[in-house]
């Protein structure tokens, strides 16, 4: 039994064998993710740069993106955000917070029946606009909503 395994491990040392093993489904590829993490966009320090590096620049303002967020967040560490895009052909949706040290928070790409909707919880450094950018039919759209952050406050 073990001899087979040993032989396999020995042979698997060459790149070619590993490639064949992946191709035949013997080994699963390490990552199921479509693209590498966009570190340039996520580490950009200002909004314009992060929008550009994430491919959401030149977006048209659109009220067809419905952004749900609290008017006042008592705790900036956990701010619930959800958004729906009513723009036909929406394929992806990203969250940006203007005043965060790194404005880009997340980028969601939808496929195979997923509705252009997402709900999550984000961090906010201080009172800021929260922007939801959307890609639809080769164009970019954006909408925003202000969330007041009262750190240590009591909601007043």
């Amino acid at each position: 039994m073990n001899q087979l395994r040993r032989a396999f491990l020995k042979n698997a040392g060459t790149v070619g064998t590993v490639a064949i093993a992946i191709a035949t489904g013997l080994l699963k590829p390490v990552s199921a993710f479509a693209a590498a993490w966009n570190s340039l966009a996520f580490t950009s320090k200002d909004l314009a740069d992060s929008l550009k590096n994430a491919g959401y620049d030149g977006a048209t303002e659109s009220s067809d993106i419905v952004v749900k967020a609290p008017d006042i967040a008592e705790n900036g560490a956990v701010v619930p955000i959800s958004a729906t895009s009513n723009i036909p052909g929406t394929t992806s949706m990203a969250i940006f917070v203007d005043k965060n040290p790194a404005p880009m928070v997340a980028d969601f790409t939808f496929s195979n029946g997923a509705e252009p909707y997402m709900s999550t919880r984000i961090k906010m450094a201080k009172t800021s606009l929260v922007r939801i950018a959307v890609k639809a039919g080769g164009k970019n759209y954006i909408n925003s909503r202000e969330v007041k952050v009262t750190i240590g406050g009591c909601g007043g």
Partner: protein
Amino acid sequence: MAEAMKMRATMDGDVVDLKVLINHPMDTGLMKDKKTDKLIPAHFINQVVATLNGKTVLDAQWGVGIAQNPFIGLRIKGGKPGDKISVNAVDNLGAKFDGEVVVA
């Protein structure tokens, strides 16, 4: 590891309503440890993929701005009770988090 992921998938009309909760510190790398006065290194989930019966429905990239113990809510058309949804996430240190749920 403790239960890393909690998932729930229910039908809402003809749409699957999926909720996912992942246990993760989501450290930004900007906060100081109050005891040692040293920066806590960045440690956050940066990629998440969800599949319905093996087909990708969500491919997401995250930065440090997602809150601790991340929550995701999604709505998926074309699912039915008994369908299998799986979620795979990976953090910036390469740790993997996997979860699976059957649509109720």
